[in-house]
């Protein structure tokens, strides 16, 4: 009898212990895992694809036109072929090669833009919150003004005027519009943290401003920073894709947005060339879902109340 009774208790304890362990490490949550998995999958597609696939097929006129993916037929009753498993577009480019190069490119613009934007945001946010006074006024007003300006509007004007830009330049331009939210967020956090004991202790013991800002306070902000980073990656990608879909992105560098632009421009909808616009759209959706999951996961890290018990 005793052994029979103790068995469930032990299982329950183990479950409890497991739960606690998971509690101990909030970074180990399934949302974060799935999100990171989706993004890594896209990166892996780019990295592995580069070794396994003929990337020359990404150039105009290198394949037959408008072939459907394997197992489908196009309007002219041509079947898909193994040489171009995801089909080809109306300009004679292989869809697989396009996404092998295009998907990581799109992600690259997002990451680079928000990396730069975040760096600006962190520096300005800390300075404003910690130094205060006139500096704070200037930075705060600047950030508030910038927040009201829709980035796409200005970028469309810029790109139409200056034309073809490289991916890096485009990322730099977008970075100019994603620093203001992290600036405000960090400034608010710094203001509240400035009153906490350990900061005042550090100040009393004569630590330099730089030391307090980046050695004492920054580590406590990491979950916020990550959350904010992922949010700005999403914004950056949306902005970049927005420009590309309008045909204002880089010209000869494949990106998911440009592929969609070309599909729309060439009448892919009415010709039922669904793979031309569908595959890049699907990849963009995957990317955004991945980023959303990571964001939700990071929320749980920084906000313990969101963590569920079971």
């Amino acid at each position, binding site marked *: 009898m005793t052994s029979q009774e103790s068995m469930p208790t032990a299982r329950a304890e183990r479950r409890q212990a497991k739960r606690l362990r998971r509690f101990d490490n909030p970074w180990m949550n399934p949302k974060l895992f799935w999100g990171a998995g989706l993004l890594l999958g896209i990166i892996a597609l780019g990295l592995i694809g580069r070794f396994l696939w003929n990337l020359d097929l990404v150039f105009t006129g290198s394949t037959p*036109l408008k072939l459907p993916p394997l197992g489908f037929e196009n309007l002219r009753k041509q079947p898909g072929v193994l040489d171009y498993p995801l089909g080809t577009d109306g300009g004679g480019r292989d869809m697989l090669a396009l996404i092998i190069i295009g998907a990581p490119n799109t992600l690259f613009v997002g990451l680079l833009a928000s990396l730069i934007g975040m760096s600006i945001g962190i520096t300005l946010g800390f300075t404003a919150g910690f130094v205060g006074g006139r500096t704070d006024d200037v930075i705060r007003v600047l950030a508030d003004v910038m927040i009201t300006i829709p980035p796409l509007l200005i970028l469309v004007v810029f790109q139409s005027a200056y034309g073809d830009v490289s991916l890096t330049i485009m990322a730099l331009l977008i970075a100019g519009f994603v620093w203001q939210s992290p600036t405000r967020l960090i400034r608010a956090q710094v203001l509240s943290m400035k009153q906490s004991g350990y900061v005042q202790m550090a100040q009393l013991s004569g630590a330099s401003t730089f030391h307090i800002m980046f050695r004492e306070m920054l580590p406590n902000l990491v979950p916020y920073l990550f959350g904010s980073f992922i949010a700005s990656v999403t914004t950056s990608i949306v902005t970049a894709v927005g420009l590309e879909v309008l045909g204002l992105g880089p010209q000869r560098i494949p990106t998911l947005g440009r592929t969609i632009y070309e599909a729309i421009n*060439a009448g892919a909808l*009415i010709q039922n060339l669904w793979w031309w616009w569908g595959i890049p759209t699907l990849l963009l959706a995957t990317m955004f879902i991945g980023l959303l999951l990571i964001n939700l996961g990071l929320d749980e890290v920084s906000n313990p109340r969101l963590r569920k018990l079971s």
Partner: protein
Amino acid sequence: MRKTTRFGASVLIAAALAGQAFAQDVAREDTVIFDLDRTIKDPENFNWFTPGTKRMHGAHQAMWEPLFILNYATGELDPWLGESITANDANDQFTMKIRGGVEWSDGEVFDADDVVFTVNMALTNEEISSREAATVRAQVASVEKVDDLTVVFNLTAPNPRFAVENFGVRIFGSFLIMPEHIWAGQDPATFANASPIGTGPYTFTSSATNRAIWDRNDNWWGAKAGFKELPEPKRLIWLETGGEESRAQLMVSNQLDAAQNVSLGTFEAIQAQNPKVIAWYEDFPYAVADPCSRQLEINTTIAPWDNVNMRKAVAAIIDRSQIVNVALEGSTVASDTMFAQFGSMAPFIDAVKDAGYALPPNGDPAAGQALIEAEGYAKGSDGIYEKDGEDLSVAIHVNSASTEYTKTIDVIVEQLNRAGIAAKAVPVENGVFWGEVLPFGTYEMTYSWLSCGSVNEPWASMGRYTVKDVVPVGERSPGFNNTSRWNTEGAAAYSAIVDEMGTKSLGDPSVPGLVAEAYQYLDAEVPFIPLVQSAKLLPMNTTYWEGWPTADNYYNHPFFWWNHTHQIIHNLTKAN
């Protein structure tokens, strides 16, 4: 997805018609809706002497009638407002008889006074810049009225093609006669002509940047004088459709009767969903041959393209057959020469070919690269040629109005990049392209058809590259002639031969020889690079209207943005 686009298309139409209280008055089955491939920048301006979309939104298809219409099917001039035009033996004096009984839509009589007045307006105003006005100014010394229905033109030089060139709608437009009682006392360079009148069977109703509406004038002179019956459509609309996809959706949902050029795949998709939509041919390639063959224009004043060898290198690299197969889906052929490959042009094309100046359909990148390297360029690590630390690059301006243009330039950009020239496309809006980029020479290279003109003789095309039309970059090229600004000794020699050719009458046996002689300079100096023949795939909808021009019903060509569209409209009949 299709539903959404269709909904969008309906909204477009609804928006176009909204605000027109009288829009409900005319039923859809009494209306013909034509496609307009550009924005009307100044919808209140109907001065066709000045640049801009002042004619092709219905003005010269429905309101202003031409004097004659060149019939592409017969090669003859069909009389319209004019009855006949005859030359003297020296081909330097032309006598034109105009039709009796013609009236402006306000009831005033149209007669020789209007013709003399309008021609004099073009002769005495240097500022007015439309191609047709510039041509008249260059060719006519004086004009006289003989009687109410007879006008005599005295030319500056013999020109056997005078009638067809100026009054015959050979390409796009013709010299349009304006009412003296409206224009007298106005400055033709600035007059807006906001309430236009014409002699045509339709009068102006309203316009906005995206559409123009014309309603039938039941009191039209032509019906009264027995010239032609009133056309059946009660209303004509030119609607900016904006791109291939919406054009196709409007066609499928019967909200458009004649569409601008679409790609082969799109046309097949339209026809699959709406079998009432037809084109020039019933089967592949569907498209009608267009007299404006495509070419890469080069500004010969800008380094490094002022160097003949660099231009030759580009010409060698370009692979015409790939343009045909990829950008145009096999619906046309590569150009052999600068000329449109019409049967009537064969003697001249053959003369050029026999002289050894025919263009190869395939590219020879190695030959092009050898020329570039001979100029001191070396390939950098990125595969692009460099000299003195600078990449060899070129920006190619392209009109973004049609996928034909952008797709072709995509292919050329790809070919040049692969050969080591950092080429990029610069898409610009239709109005900017024709209004600013092309005439003022503010480009390195661009995609267009500026040698367009010859249909049955060689001079119209070749005459567009003579040195007399050279102006500095930043000044307007007269009538888009010699926008390459080709002005070398070779160009002078070329011009002398072409001028001599210009005095020969149609069918003179010495002309093919002169063509070949002049062509050696084009071949040697490459002021532009001929690419492919143009074919236009124009979907026409037979749901509401029948009688569209087709290969089986060839009363004239189907380019419904040209001045000859009067003929199309008179041929339309209601579908049952």
